[in-house]
């Protein structure tokens, strides 16, 4: 996706020079392979730092809420869905934004590549349309990119921006038949004991750093429930009960809002697949309300609306 860079810079330069925006939110090239840094270009002289490749998995909508400036934002499919969320939830105004749309071909799963070459130092990761090229000390490997995409990207059905002011390129083709919930169905089949143990194992490495929460564009509460001290709702230790309480409650707060952008898993320093929780809720919301988060500015999220045909009988 590096071919988008000149166009991103061209659009950004024009917007800044013509003072149509105060800043352009995007990425700049990272200091280590497979990492880029969210970056705000504030003047035309910053523009050449703007960068794009398949390592821009952090969701930039996370940097938009409660901002006052007029901002152009470089946004892939999931980012735009979270921007829609933000607008619907009154975190940012549509007319404050200039959305530079990225037809996304999916983000590279850094963790998977690091694990594949564990023990060998990766010094450079390059990409073309089909492949990821990994170079390092005595290392030169070419891997088809479809094999090393983040899991959420490999089952993504909204690669293209759902809302934009200008696209950097033609839309990419969206896949026809994707079963997004293979793994969730398997978990639904488990009996409660087994399922409890399964999640216990998954969350046991958690160090409570809150990288998942803090990289999530949905988590903008001024004070998160785990940070409340009067009263304190959750213990602060790494006791598994408290760890699971944090993850389960956070997931529930994302119900009907999560776009499966994968920022949480990308950010996690210990590799916890917490999307298993949010995906289950995404599936439930789809089945119960026929709703997909972040697709339309004109539709209220199901959990903040009342409808007489609500499937929950108790609400009638």
């Amino acid at each position, binding site marked *: 996706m590096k071919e988008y860079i000149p166009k991103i810079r061209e659009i950004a330069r024009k917007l800044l020079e013509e003072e149509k925006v105060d800043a352009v939110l995007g990425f700049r090239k990272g200091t280590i392979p497979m990492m880029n840094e969210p970056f*705000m270009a504030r003047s035309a002289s910053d523009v050449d730092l703007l960068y794009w490749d398949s390592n821009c998995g952090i969701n930039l909508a996370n940097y938009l809420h409660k901002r006052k400036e007029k901002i152009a934002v470089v946004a892939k499919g999931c980012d735009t869905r979270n921007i829609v969320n933000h607008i619907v939830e009154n975190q940012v105004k549509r007319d404050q934004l200039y959305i530079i749309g990225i037809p996304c071909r999916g983000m590279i799963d850094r963790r998977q590549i690091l694990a594949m070459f564990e023990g060998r130092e990766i010094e450079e990761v390059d990409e073309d349309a089909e492949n990821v090229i990994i170079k390092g000390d005595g290392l030169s490997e070419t891997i088809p990119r479809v094999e090393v995409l983040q899991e959420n990207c490999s089952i993504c059905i909204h690669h293209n921006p759902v809302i934009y002011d200008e696209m950097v390129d033609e839309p990419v083709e969206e896949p026809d038949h994707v079963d997004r919930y293979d793994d969730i169905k398997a978990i639904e089949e488990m009996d409660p004991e087994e399922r409890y143990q399964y999640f216990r194992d998954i969350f046991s490495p958690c160090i409570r750093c809150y990288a998942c929460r803090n990289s999530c564009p949905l988590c903008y509460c001024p004070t998160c429930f785990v*940070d409340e001290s009067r009263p304190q709702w959750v213990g602060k*230790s790494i006791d598994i009960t408290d760890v699971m309480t944090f993850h389960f409650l956070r997931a529930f707060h994302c119900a009907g809002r999560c776009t499966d952008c994968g920022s949480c898993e990308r950010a996690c320093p210990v590799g916890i697949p917490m999307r298993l929780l949010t995906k289950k809720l995404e599936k439930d919301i789809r089945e119960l309300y026929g709703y997909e988060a972040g697709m339309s500015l004109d539709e209220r999220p199901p959990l903040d609306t009342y409808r007489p045909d609500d499937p929950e009988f108790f609400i009638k």
Partner: protein
Amino acid sequence: MSEVIIPKDELASFVGRLLESYEVFAPVARGGMYLFERISAADEADLSYKNTRLSPKGAFLPQSERMFEFTVAPGKEESGILKEAPKEFRERVLLGLRPCDAQAFKLVDVNFITKEYTDPWWARRREKAILVGLGCNEPRSTCFCTSTGGGPFSEKGLDVLLYDLGESFLARAVTEKGEQIVSFCSGKAPGESLKSKARELEAAARAKIRKSLPVDKLKEKDLLELFNGKFWEKIEFACINCGTCTFVCPTCWCFDIQDEVYKNDGDRLRNWDSCMFPIFTLHGSGHNPRAQKVQRVRQRFMHKLKYYVDKYGNGVACVGCGRCVVSCPVNIDIRRVMEVMTAEVCEREE
């Protein structure tokens, strides 16, 4: 000090002998990463690792630890009295830790063992610990220990240093305690060829650390000029204010104390804390002196790279392990921050 050769096929029996006398902590493969954990069998230790995702500081300062227990039951004699919770203080061997992490322990001692106060649990565990380091034949591209007073084969803080010679390890005792460990090895003393191989490995490893950082310039910088630097706004922009950098860091020592009470009985716990969290500095009054993200980000870097430098005069509070560089979700790179902080002209707040 003694040197012996441990053939790799005898490593397991050596670790087995250690396990008979000590608690042994070692790098263990855990689902795509390595962690430093207490092992119960010799084959759990995997010395082929590069480095652990989290530092080994948890061996002396567990992420969560029960300090005291108490009851507030009315009428009981011990009601309201804190009793020390039982803890493990057996002699322990940290096997195969990296030299940077050993240096980090010495650095953290500065905080937990002072003239006025000693943290009894840190101090006792440290005293009872024997650190068997493993030199780094292949430092990672994110390593910069040579800029922070260490090196891939630095003996600082170690009792024994191991050289991985391919077919065998060369173990060199650095302290009296280390001699004790080396005596567990049944191997022979190394011949001249293996000794020179060790020296070659050391030189090659040093040469592989390409990054040289201007650490010495930090002490010359004016504290307020740095504090008021306009560059913090650029550094902090991407930061999501998670605790990753502080939790993976071998020199971050901050903790929080919490009481957890159920009915009349409770525990007083000590948990790792992070200066990145807003609640870290939240006062009882509701005032928060570091309410803004930029203040918290500045605090972390200023503490490591300036306040510590000025207060103790023994360099930066960073050992160049590169863990925060690897794990930061948004690529905030302490090496770049150091370069910005030591740039000739500090951009200042207008």
